């Protein structure tokens, strides 16, 4: 029974960890987008 529990924990643990990593990638990309848009805006305001 313990083995069964361990196996299922591993299966869903791995899937969950992968989904989390996908989520992390997504939020870091979103942050990058924010930084770039800030820079663009500050450049535009400087040019004006």
């Amino acid at each position: 029974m313990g083995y069964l529990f361990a196996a299922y924990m591993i299966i869903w643990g791995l899937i969950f960890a992968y989904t989390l990593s996908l989520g992390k990638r997504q939020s870091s990309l979103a942050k990058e987008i924010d930084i770039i848009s800030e820079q663009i805006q500050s450049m535009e305001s400087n040019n004006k």
Partner: protein
Amino acid sequence: MNQNYLLGKRHNILGWTTFFLVCISLYMIFIVTPTDVRLGIVQKIFYFHVASAWNAFFAFFIVFLTSIMYLVKRDRKYDVIAVASAEIGVIFTTIVLTTGPIWGRSSWNAWWVWEPRLTTTLILWFIYIAYIMIRMSDMEWEKKSRLSAVFGIIGFIDVPIVFMAIRWWNTKLHPVVFGEGTDQTGGGLDTIMLYTLILSVFTFTALYFYLLQKGIAIGNMRNKVDEIKDNFKNAI
């Protein structure tokens, strides 16, 4: 570049579908199917173990197809699909390689058996880790995509040869009746177990497509952000 990185309604529907399939599968596995007489309750690992294995193979087949398409059409969307699929394939293969020994330990008191399918899965794992390492290496994206596509083709072609070689090797060294134990189909599968197995496989297929959509969206987003950064640098 008309890359789609927005995950709309269909993605959410797929997500909920996957969730419900998982719930139904778990119900079938734990409540409906009888405990196997010989192997005991640990046998229930088998449903997701096999589901994971088949879908890993499917994922790698998709890598193979999209690698060919990329080399022929040079459309970056194929490359994005290939990477996402390879990653999911590695995750599923890892699941197979970890649940296999757990089953082995409880059933035959051996953490690892050099059994054909498990050993082939191990080599498969290494091949696609190699694919991911090529992608992680330091090159321009065009080169990276091209070279990993080439390796994606070579890796997949190798798989049947690996399987044959390991099977012959195994029958000469360990002429044991492990084949029956690992997938149960030799020992006569109860119909209810068969249905549960098929359901589990489809559940994992839904999970595969759900994770694939996420992976594709992230890949496209990554490419778009890089493109914006390059344009930005050039504009300065």
